[in-house]
């Protein structure tokens, strides 16, 4: 285990804030806080349903500005060059829409309400993510 980088407390508190955001969106707007869904459905918005989605995305970006100002060490560079970012980005965008959810929609909200679909989806993207890291780091020869 990587004891040097293990940060259980900030992870727990950060997770609680994410959960609080999801809960507030549910009990105030009656919507699930799945980021891929919130962003993706902006591409084909239902009437009266686009403004809060756009505002949520603006809030995410503004939050990034805030975090960068208060604690820039919260950010790190993604690995790889443009090719990796392009392929990874397209896969993340396409896959989350096809599978109807991402880490937040399936992994957090869906698993919390014990949705069988979300539990299966979460197990699959975790397993494939782990397999991908294994191949890239330990089979491909990259550090």
């Amino acid at each position, binding site marked *: 285990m990587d004891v040097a980088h293990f940060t259980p407390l900030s992870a727990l508190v950060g*997770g609680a804030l994410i959960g609080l955001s999801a*809960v507030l969106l549910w*009990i105030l*707007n009656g919507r699930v806080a799945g980021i891929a869904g919130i962003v993706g459905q902006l591409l084909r918005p239902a009437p009266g349903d686009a403004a809060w989605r756009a505002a949520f995305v603006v809030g995410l970006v503004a939050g990034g500005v805030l975090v960068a100002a208060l604690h820039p060490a919260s950010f790190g560079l993604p690995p790889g060059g443009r090719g990796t970012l392009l392929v990874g980005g397209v896969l993340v965008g396409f896959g989350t829409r096809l599978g109807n959810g*991402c*880490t937040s929609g399936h992994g957090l909200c869906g698993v919390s309400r014990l949705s069988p679909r979300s539990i299966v989806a979460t197990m699959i993207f975790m397993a494939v993510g782990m397999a991908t890291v294994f191949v890239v780091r330990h089979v491909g020869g990259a550090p």
Partner: protein
Amino acid sequence: MSAAKTIVGFGCGLLFAVGLGLSGMTQPSKVLGFLDVAGGAWDPSLAFVMLGGMATIALVRRFGPTKPLFEHAYPTLARLPIDRPLVLGAALFGLGWGLVGYCPGPAVVALGGRVPGAGFFCASAGMGMAIFEVVRRAFYRNET
């Protein structure tokens, strides 16, 4: 009530972003360290993110109101079967996540933090979502 819903959207996005930043999800190296179970230096922190989030959701779900404040009712979340699009989509997402270490939320937050490469990743993910819309229209013509 549209203005209220918009304000809620912004506030929840902001809170979500701060939570992601604090949790470590905006550091691809930390995400990949969590996914690297076989590397001998596994970082289990992100399991605690899930734990914190789920505990909060479970707690509020128990005592939450019976209808949302700015909507007439909660949506009935469709009980769809575990089908091929779900399995294939989750697998493709896992592949991209494992390559870069960004899932959608942290990528958008990193865009706001002006992290080099984050904007390019978000544009690529947007392209993937747009490709999905084209594919959907080609295959599911009857869906609204």
